[in-house]
Every structure is written in C-alpha cells, then in structure tokens.
C-alpha cells in the first residue's frame, strides 16, 4: 500500500471514528443532558451574601480543605490586591450558601463531567493574564481539548502516584515523594506527567544519546511551555527571540560573521533530533555526509552550494564533512567553517 493510500485510509478511519464517537457521545450525552452545556463562572451574577467563605466548606470536605490550605490559592484573601474579590473554594465553585443550607450537590458548581475547556475557562479567569498562560486559548493543548485539570490538581492533592524509576527512589513511602509537583499543583512530577500522553517520545529518551530528562537533570518544561505560546511545538524562547536550545548551548548563539543559514532560518531541528537518537550528536542521520548532501546538492536552482570533487570524494577520509568543516554552526574566521 502506498503511503498516500495509507494516509487516506487513516483519514477515512478517523472520520468514521469521529462519526461513531459523535453518535455514541450524543446518545450517551442524552443521559447527561443537565451537564452538557458548558458552564461559565460569572460571579457577578450571584448575590454577594450568598458567599459563605471556605471555612464553611471544611466541615464536610476536610481532606480537600486541608490539601487546599497548603496551596498558593489559599491565602489570596490576605493579600491586599485581592480584597473584595471572591477567593477560596467559592472562587471556582460559586457561592455555597444554598448548597450548605440544603445539602444539595446541585446547588454548587461541580466540575465533574464538565468539558475540559469549560474547566479551563474557570482557571483562566485568573491565570490568563500571566505571561506564561497568555496564549493558552490558542495553544496545542487547548486545540486538542487538554484542560488545566488534566495536569494540575486544583485542590493541591496528590491524586496520582509517582512511579519509581532508575533515578527515583522506591519504598513504601514512594507515593509521597515531594517534588516540584507539590508547588505547581501538578498531579505527578515531570516527565512522568508529560509521557502519560506523549508516550511516542519515551523511546527517544532511552536512546544512547538523549537530553537528560529521565535522569532528572532536565524537565520537559525547560524547553516547552505546556500552557501554549506563539511558537510551534509550544517551545520556549531564550534570550529574547532565540531558540530554546541556545539557553544552554550558548556558543551556538552567535551572531557569526559567517552564518550557516539554516541554523537561524530553519532551526536546530533541521539537523538534530532533540529528544534523543542513536546517532552521534543527535543527528538525523548516522552518517554526517549524507545529512549535509541532502541540502548541499543543487539542481534547478534548488539546494545549497554542492561540494565539488575530487577532494569531497566520499570514499576517502572526507566522508565526514565536519572533519574539516568543524565550525558548522557558524564561524567568524572561515567562510567554509574551517576554524
């Protein structure tokens, strides 16, 4: 089967799955009619006297209250700029007066079975203004309906276990391992959290050459902004508008008198696979000369300047282009990147 046929088949299958899912979800959703309409939290629609404060929730929801009390959400009421605003449990769940008075679960906003975007909108009501979150509504996760609570535990509870690993200790106390998840209110620590969905990258971090994420020396969020952003792949920027890579690989930043143009115009991924590879230097191919030739071959005016014979004879020691062109990321003193 040709690749085009394969992809067409896949798309047809996807359309079928979508149709079936839609149909299935529509029929299943009939039983969930009261909750299928996205809910917008609109505090202004409520009467101020309906708010009873988080302490009132404690009697019935002690576990949640205690976990919540350790989060940075909890003490907003003591901060001047939050005075007069609804904080605590009711900031998300709405006024609790009727819920407490009648004990009726329907008299409080619950997020169970709510669409991810609806839940996220509640979070964004406060968090959207931060630089880190500004573009969440246009990010990859939003687009694919991954909401805030897929990763974060809003009550600050550790709702999922950390799994032991080569660099993570294992014992009866494993589940209570403190990590940065505690402060960022993540359900579990990185990279376990990210790999839960992005399992396709897991093998790359187990290749002979890889960025040291599983070793704990790096995190996915060192390079990616899980909350969106204007960059493709939700990558971060370094030192202004440079690629995230130069934050650590400072000597590749330049500018150079003689730039290797693709580094700046196409990015490091033109030649490297950043997560991991069996190829040295995380290159896309195992033999350097092939990688170079795939650009440095010219026809119809397409392609970069090609190496001329005979000194670029592939059967000699010149098979490895970077043996001579050592400063391939850019050079100040050689237009052919010799020094």
């Amino acid at each position, binding site marked *: 089967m040709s690749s085009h046929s394969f992809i067409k088949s896949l798309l047809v299958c996807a359309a079928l799955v979508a149709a079936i*899912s839609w149909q299935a979800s529509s029929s299943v959703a009939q039983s969930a009619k009261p909750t299928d309409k996205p809910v917008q939290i609109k505090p202004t629609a409520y009467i101020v006297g309906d708010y009873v404060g988080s302490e009132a929730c404690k009697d019935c929801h002690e576990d949640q209250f205690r976990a919540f009390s350790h989060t940075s959400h909890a003490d907003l009421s003591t901060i001047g700029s939050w005075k007069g605003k609804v904080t605590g449990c009711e900031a998300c769940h709405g006024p609790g007066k009727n819920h407490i008075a009648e004990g009726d679960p329907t008299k409080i906003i619950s997020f169970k079975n709510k669409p991810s975007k609806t839940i996220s909108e509640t979070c964004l009501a406060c968090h959207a203004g931060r630089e880190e979150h500004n573009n969440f509504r246009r990010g990859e996760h939003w687009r694919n309906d991954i909401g805030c609570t897929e990763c974060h535990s809003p009550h600050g509870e550790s709702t999922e276990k950390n799994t032991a690993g080569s660099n993570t200790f*294992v014992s009866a106390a494993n589940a209570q391992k403190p990590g940065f998840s505690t402060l960022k209110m993540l359900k579990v620590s990185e990279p376990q959290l990210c790999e839960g969905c992005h399992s396709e990258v897991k093998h790359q971090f187990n290749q002979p050459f890889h960025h040291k994420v599983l070793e704990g020396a790096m995190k996915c969020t060192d390079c990616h902004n899980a909350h969106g952003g204007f960059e493709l792949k939700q990558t971060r920027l370094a030192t202004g508008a440079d690629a995230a890579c130069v934050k650590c690989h400072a000597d590749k930043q330049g500018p150079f008198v003689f730039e290797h143009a693709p580094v700046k115009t196409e990015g490091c991924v033109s030649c490297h696979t950043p997560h991991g590879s069996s190829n040295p230097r995380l290159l896309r191919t*195992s033999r350097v000369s*092939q990688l170079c030739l795939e650009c440095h071959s010219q026809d119809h005016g397409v392609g970069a300047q090609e190496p001329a014979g005979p000194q670029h004879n592939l059967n000699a*020691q010149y098979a490895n282009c970077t043996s001579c062109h050592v400063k391939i990321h850019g050079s100040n003193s050689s237009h052919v990147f010799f*020094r």
Partner: protein
Amino acid sequence: MKSKIIKMLGLLTGAALWLVLLAGTTIGQQPDASPTPTKSPEKKTTAATPKPNPEAVDMMGDYTIVSSLELGYRALSVTGDRNKYQSDLNNRAGLRIFDSSFLARAKEGKGGAFDTFLVTSTGWGSDPYGSMRVSVEKSRWYRFDGNFRRFKYFNFLNNLANPNFATQPPNPITGQHGYDVRQSMGDFDLTLLPKNENFRFTLGVSPERYSGPAYTTYHVGGDDFKLLSKLKSRSNDFRVGVDGKIGSVDISFLQGFRRFREDSSINNVGQNLGVNPALSNAFITSFLRNNPVRGHVNYSRLSAHTLVNKKLDLTGRIIYSKATTDFGFIENITGINWNTRVTGAPTANTLNLGSLNIIGGSNRPNALGDFGLTWMATDRLRLSNTFRVETFQISGGEFYTSAYFLTRTTGVAFPPILAGGNLGTSTLTKYRKIQDTVEADYQFNNRFSMHAGYRYGTRHIQDFRSGANPGALVPSAVPLIAEDETNHTQAVFGGFKARPANNWTIYFDAERGSADNVFTRVGNYNHTNVRAKSRYAPTKKLSFNLAVITRNNSNPSEIGGVSLTDFGVNIKSRVFTSSVDWTPSSKLSLNAGYNYNWLNSDAVVDYFYLAVRHPTGHSQYFMRNNFFTVDAVAHLSPRATLYAAYRINKDLGQGSRREDPTGAPGFLVTSYPMSFQSPEARLAFKINNRIDWNVGYQYYNYRESPLVGPGPQNYHAHMPYTSLRVYFGKRG
C-alpha cells in the same frame, strides 16, 4: 570572580539545605501533631490513589517536614568499548547521592520566613548529571525558584569524524572529535509580591559555564590535523521585569542582558603528522591558536493581555533583541612541507612561522511581534486568529593579515608571504517572516469537541557576502553571494476529541501543508501529518494507551514551473505506541509499553565517489526501531519493596538493503542498527523508622551492527549499588 558565581550559588544552596536539615532533625523529635485524616464523600473518587504516608511526616515548629536523603556506593564493571560506554552513560564507580528531597511546609499554609521550602536533588557524586532544584515561597511576599545543574560530557566515537570510517581497518581508532567536558548552569529567579494582582517584580540570573579538553581537526597546509584544544566559555543572563495590571489589561515587561565570553585555545607543541602521515606531506611542529569571543545580547519583551466582556481575548507580545559579537583570532604555526598550492613555495620546505590574525564582529537586531485574538462567540464556539511578524538582520565583517616565513631545505629563504592588511569580508543576512493562523473550535457537548484551522506564511531571505577570502595567502575573493529567496506556505489542520464512554477518550488531529519554494531541501514543506491517540481506563486500576502518528514530508514537486520530481526529498515516518498501566492492588503496580518507529528518508543528492560524479544519486536513511519497556513495583512485605524494570531499544535499520555508491545513479544507504537494553532491579528494606537499606543492580548491553561504522562499539556494563536512605521524619 565572576567564574565563581555558579559555584557559590550552589554552595549556598547546599549549605542552606543542610542547615535546615540539621535543624529539622533536632527539632523533629517532637511528637507528631498532624491530625488523623478523615474521609469525605468525595474521597471515593481517589480511592485507588496512594495517600501520603503519615509515618514519614515530622514537625518542625509550625512546619511539616517531609524529607529523605539517600547516600550510597556504586560499583562498575565495563567490558567492550569503554569509550562508547562513557559516551552513552558515563556513570562512574564511587559514592553517589541518589534522589533526595526536603520539603518544609507551613501547617496552615502560612509560615514565618517562608510558607514552603523545597529542595530536590539527584545525580551527584559518581553520576555524570547532577541537578538540584530549590523553591522557597512566602506567597504574599516572594517566591524563589532556583536550579543548579552539572553535566559531565564524554564523547569518543569511532563513527564520527573518523578518517578511517570508510576504509574500515581491522583496528579502527576512535574518531577525531572526542571531548571530555564539564558544563554547569543554573537559573535563579526571585519574584516579589508573586500573588499581587496589580504589580509583581521579577529578578533573575542564569549563569552557564563550559570547559574541558576536546579534540578538533584543522585542514591546513595541505593536510588534515588532529589538535587538542582547551574549551572554555561562559555566559551570564540577567533579567529584571515587572508584571501587573493597568485597568483591565495585564502587562508584563522583561528586560534581559546576556553576556557571553569564549576563551578557547589550542596550544600544541610537537610533531603532528596529520591524517596523511607520509613525511613528504605537510606536518605541524607547533600550533598555537587563541580565539577570544565576546558577545552580548540585550533584549526586551513586552506582553499585554485583556479579556473584553468575557468574550474577546486579546494577547500581544513584542520582543526586541540585539546581539553583538566581537572577536580576535591569532594563529601561529610552524611545520614542514607546506603545500605549494597553499604557499606558492616549492616543497620541500620548512615553515618557520605562519601567522594569521583576524579581527571582526557581527550584530543581529531582531524584532518579533505576535498578536492573538480569540472570540468566544458562544459558550460552545470559539474563533481565533494568531498573527506573527519577525525580522532580523545579521551583518558581520572581519579583516585579516597573514605572514608566512618559509625556508627551502637547501637553506635558502623563500621570500616572506604577506597578505591581508585591508583585506576583509562583509556579510549580510536579512530575514522576514509573516504568518497568520485562523482557527475555530466547537464544543458539541461534554463528550465531543473539534477544531479546524488554516495557516498561511511567507518568508523572505536575502543573503549577501563579498570581500576577501579570510586567511588566503594569495589574496582572493570569497565566493560572492547575492541571493534573494521567497516562499509561501499554507496548511490546513483539524481534529477532534471524543469520549465515546466515560472511561475512553480519543484524540485525533491532522495537518496538511504545502509550499511553493524551499530554503533547505530537507525542510518540512509539503507535509501531511496525522496523529490519533486513545486512552481507555476500564477501571481506576487499569488503563490502556494507544497512539498512531504518521508524517509525510517532501519538497514541492515543482518550483517556478520546473518539475522537481527527480530531485525531491521524501521523508516518511510512522510511529505506533502503546502502553498499559495496571495497579491490581496497593502492593503491586505494573507498567508496560511498546513503541515502533518506522522511518524512510530518500533524497536525491549529487556526490563524488571514486572521483566519479553521481549527480542524481540517492541518499537513503532507514529506521525500524522497536522499544519495549516494563516496570513493576511490589511491596513484598511491610519492610521490603521491589522495583524491577526492563527497557530495550532495538533498531533493525536498513535490513538487507546495501548501499551501492558506484552504481548509476548510485545509492548511499545508512541506518543505525543496534540494540540497547537495560534490565534493573532494586530491593529496599526498611531497617527502622528512619532508615531504609537499598541494594540494586543495573545492567546495560549495547550492540551495534558492523554497518554502523569501522568497528562495532559493543559493551556490557554492570552496576551493582547499595545505599542508605535516611528519613528526616518520624516513621511510626
């Protein structure tokens, strides 16, 4: 002094940790005052979740302490290619600090100097990659996040930069670009008034240091030489910013300053025969190079965001940066038989001194503007537009002088060769990119949503270069460049998320893009990407994940009316991934996964082989990688816990395909067939309430096909280890 900053910060952080730990153990003898947890009705939703073990919690005044430190020793036995082992893993025998942590958290969320103090650390001692992260917060007043990392990189491979690569001698030497370097870096950020809605201040510094010996190669005088260099560079990034709210607009401003300096040098004394060691060829007797570089980047970022009537989300961002580099270059060489082609002097000769001096610099102003808009048309429908414009201009220039003093072997001096002076080169690269994305997403109900969009982009690149060829003894012009390229790209994309059942979620998205011109032939221009994922959790203790990802990338088949069907690049990849998580009981959990990565890359290339040109040869690269992983945690008894895992990457590569570089059109075929597997097991015994004893073993087996390089770099590594984990917390 500046070079000590990162070490001092690390030492201060470590000292702070240990002081707190010491205080914690002293005060921690107090009775545990943590209340007994009570069940609430909603707790049922997390019934399968392991709860924090209250036994490992201690009190320090008003703070709850959760902490442990693990110290141990690892032994190491490596057989096979030790260079490759160190290039991959670089674990050493010796004392080791394992994954350790310290958390002090105010009981009621509010403490004295801090509400939360967290330190996590891993990989110190004999591990090659060490990391320490610190977070201290008193949410009303400040938050400090810091991390310090240290990497020990070792890399000596026989299949990279190896002049014997193609000839495959029986005893292949290692490649010529080996290194053994250290890199340390950190990020330290302080936010003042972090929860204040109206204004917040941020201060940050990110130091980075890189140093160590490395081999490099140099093509000079008519031969190629392997030289030992001393790498040394450092950078410091300082940031100051303010965030806040003006009316209903959230504003964020950041001003940053990065300073970079490189002082790498080469100072080799002694005879260096080069890659072609015949004495009739050129060789070096001494080599000195100093190439100091000073760089700085000043950057500013302004972001604004507002939500109008809870319906219209507007976000804008402007970044302006200016990067500047100044450098000097001094190179002095002495040698024998400098090639006539280079010097004009007949061989045999003696190079008494060849000197090259270059000075120059470059700068790159860069402006980036982004604007995003989302209109929440209804509670279900959102329409968005994201616009980007980016420009930068890189201009560089340099001047050189060179002087070569040679003597004929007859003793007659050859006239000095002097070049340079006012000879220089100037370069200019201009880049402009404009991109706009329109998209919509619709929430049908709480089980089905979908999105669709269209992205348009255009890029314009101009590249100029003129002047003298830097370093040329016979003044010559650098090949002139005056290029002007434009391309236009389009892409449509869409996808959906469906929940056919409460415990089953499907994600699907696809994108198809096209371009009318290419800048780099292997770039992602005409593409069709499809991604489908499924997560099914029949119970809270069992979940299945499946995913299929396909990518087809190729160049446009036609540019400017010229067919490129015979000069194309086609890259196809297929990824299948699956995993299962099963927690049959609180005493056992299992995780297993399988991943298959299929890649075919085929590019038409123009190459020389045995002095014959192959203008329409093919460069093919294949991957057929199978990755399997399984791990299990079993609490065998109240005192014993077992962790066992197995991971293997096995790439079958090109299979039975063999390259045929001499054919017509000729095929260059490569892959990296190899297997890399690692079983491991670890047993933890609880000795008493404060100490666990661990014993573990990890094994690595790496094997690669002879197709990979001049000789398989196989190795086995055995790593038994033992350690004590000490809990700074009461355990019953």
